[in-house]
């Protein structure tokens, strides 16, 4: 067990080190003077310029620069965004909250809706399954961007149930969450139904039924557990997908968030922010993967003994 945890930590550190190294390399491979790249399209005084050179050790050999950069990141100093007039840590900090709120709500909705749908439709009559999988196909296929506009048009502009933009609190969160969860919910439902159906054909299910267990009981107590393992794997991958769809959703609903920050940073060539976002995303992935590994242990007792 200890060995397993150590390996896990070791690989996590490796991933983060890789992310730092990649962003350092990107900075140096970008055409142009590194100072100019860091400053982007902003204008700074010679003093600030000198300060940047000193901070990043740009007047010293490359290995020293690399060590300086690593040291800064380790101390939690992600640098300064000269375009946003604030430090990268502050910029990301203020935008992280709304993004986590959206991502958290989306994951919750996704898991609850997919599980319910999968449980209700697996091995049911043909038309139920057909209807469900047809809807899923549509859900997976429509771009988040378009779904968001459609939701706004119907539920905000026509029916007036939800505010179009910038509302605080839950009413403003409903449409963005639906828009972001549509593709991943449908994907997850499909996956879970398929593995549920496979499980429901296993002999132990027949045994359970022969013991007189209700259909719902079989599905909940025996089959679901089996369907959850691949679902959790998929969810881990989905978190990455979320960052992408958030760019569109945040823009359309005029929400603050990492998506908007990244978009502005990439188009404005604000490299310190881009590098910061890369690091934060790497940390996010590492955390999500650890959580998933722990969830495997919770779901599948066999893995516990193996560990």
């Amino acid at each position, binding site marked *: 067990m200890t060995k397993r945890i150590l390996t896990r930590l070791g690989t996590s550190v490796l991933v983060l080190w890789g992310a730092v190294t990649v962003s350092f390399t990107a900075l140096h491979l970008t055409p142009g003077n590194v100072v100019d790249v860091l400053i982007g399209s902003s*204008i700074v005084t010679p003093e600030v310029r000198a300060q940047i050179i000193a901070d990043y050790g740009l007047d010293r050999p490359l290995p020293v620069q690399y060590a300086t950069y690593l040291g800064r990141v380790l101390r939690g100093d992600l640098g300064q965004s000269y375009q946003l007039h604030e430090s990268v840590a502050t910029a990301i900090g203020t935008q992280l909250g709304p993004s986590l709120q959206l991502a958290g709500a989306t994951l919750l909705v996704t898991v609850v809706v997919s599980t319910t749908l999968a449980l209700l439709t697996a091995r049911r009559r043909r038309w139920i399954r057909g209807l469900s999988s047809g809807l899923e196909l549509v859900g997976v296929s429509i771009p988040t961007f378009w779904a968001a506009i459609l939701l706004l048009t119907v539920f905000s502009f026509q029916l007036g149930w939800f505010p179009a*933009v910038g509302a605080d609190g839950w009413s403003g969160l409903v449409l963005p969450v639906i828009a972001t969860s549509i593709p991943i919910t449908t994907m997850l439902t499909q996956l879970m139904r398929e593995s549920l159906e496979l499980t429901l054909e296993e002999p132990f299910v027949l045994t359970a039924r022969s013991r007189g267990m209700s259909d719902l009981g079989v599905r909940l107590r025996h089959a679901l557990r089996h369907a959850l393992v691949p679902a959790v794997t998929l969810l881990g991958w989905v978190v990455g997908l979320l960052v992408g769809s958030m760019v569109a959703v945040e823009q359309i609903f005029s929400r603050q968030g990492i998506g908007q920050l990244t978009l502005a940073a990439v188009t404005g060539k604000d490299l310190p922010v881009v590098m910061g976002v890369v690091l934060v995303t790497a940390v996010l992935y590492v955390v999500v993967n650890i959580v998933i590994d722990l969830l495997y242990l919770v779901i599948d007792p066999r893995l516990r003994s193996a560990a």
Partner: protein
Amino acid sequence: MPSFRSPLAALAILPILALTACGGGTPPAQTETAGAPVKGGSLVFGVNTEPLNLDPHASPQDVTGLFTRPALDSLVALDDQGGIHPWLASSWEISPDGRTYTFKLRQDVKFTDGGVFDAEAVKTNLDHIVDPKTKSQLAAAAFGPYESTEVIDAQTVAVKFSKPYSPFLAALATAYFGIQSPKSLAEGPEALAKKVVGTGPFIIDAFVPHQGITYHRNPDYNWPPAGAKHTGPAYLERLEFKILTEDAVRLGALTSGQIDAIASVPPVNVKQVEADPRLAIVRKQAPGGNYNYYPNTASGVFADQKVRQAFRDGIDFATIVGKLYFGTFDPAYSPISPATHGYDAATETQWRHDPTGAARLLDEAGWTGKDAEGYRTKDGKRLTVRWPFLKSFAREQRGTLAEQVQAEAKKLGFDVVFTDVTPTDFAPKAIAGDYDLIDFSWQRADGDALRALFAISNIPSASFFGQNLARYKNTEVDGWLSDALATTDLADRAALYAKVQQQVNTDVAVFPVYVFNYLLGVSKNVRDIAWEPQAYPTFYDAWVSKA
């Protein structure tokens, strides 16, 4: 010659201005006047872009003017005809040599943070604009040959220039010269980027990037510019700008009645909004340089004036613009817009669409061959036009427009090649003159925009990134432009600017494309939105009827 603080500063302006340009001219088509203005209430305005930095002294984006105007007043006010009126300055005198402007200030003005508005505050502001630490990208450039400000007494201040500079008062009237509280200025650029404090009719509550900005009324306000419809505090209790970059969302928010007004109605939806009995469209033409194409007159195929003229006259720009924008933008005939003081209407008949003449000109220029693909050739070389196009910054379907021009040019035998560039590699190309055609708009509420576009000293170089991307060199035109700087007589300046427009059209140093119109969509409940000459709406007189 106004030079930018640093070549880098100037370099950053161009793409940003080109994409956030804005607009002045037609009187606001206000809805029927009904009863006395209602006090109180709030107005929500959906805008399509946002400032990265709220300090108008520093920011290169003209949208910063829109965001800070409610909170900041200027020393003087500019009207649509180019006339200057008192605002925070009650009167002024210009010395006979045109180098010193002496302002008498109003005595009853207070900053919203309690500070006193006096000559010292004015000096602090003007010096802040040119302070290298401010890194001003727009205001400092518009300040020209500014030398210093001298406080004569608490209510009198003298602004000195090293050379006569007639566009000064027009520049001073813009929000980029908005007077800020010295106390707030002292907090430094980081704080100013998020909040500015002035003497204006509204006070900024909070600016949240990507979401919007909120203001509340300044209850002590009693110093509106001459020309305002009322005195005393603003009618609106609250004012809010929401940032809605998505066209469909902005439009939907207006048509569903969730917000009261929107900026930049998409041209394709203008008819739909006009058909709605609850809504109206208000158009305001932007002053300054139109959205134009500028040929490189110094090298390449367009160094030959006949080839330039063939391109301009051979392509039916007016029809392309009319069809693409459904008639919401007017085709341009002069480098500057009809809303600019000094616009010469005679340019409208100076040249016209003439494909046969264009073909004849190309023959005369020696481009008589035809290759397999139908392009004209000369000595085996194809008639190729290289056009660095900033796709990521193209707004108002300028990309589609460019493609239609490309197709039309092909009929004439031109091979128009787009090089998709990013802002980073655009600048070196522009400086080196490594292009045949370039497109941009250049808003400014003064005919002096012509100097930015055509003065020899404004040809981009390694040390100075000017806007004369046509690389146009005409010493006679330069003479007229500097004569215009030396006189403050509006008629004299207009006559000089007319000569410049005629001459650059004769020399085909510009292909005028379209005149940008600010398309404001408003609910009919909203009354009396006024306009800055720079063509953005102002809200001091605005009110919302309860009906």
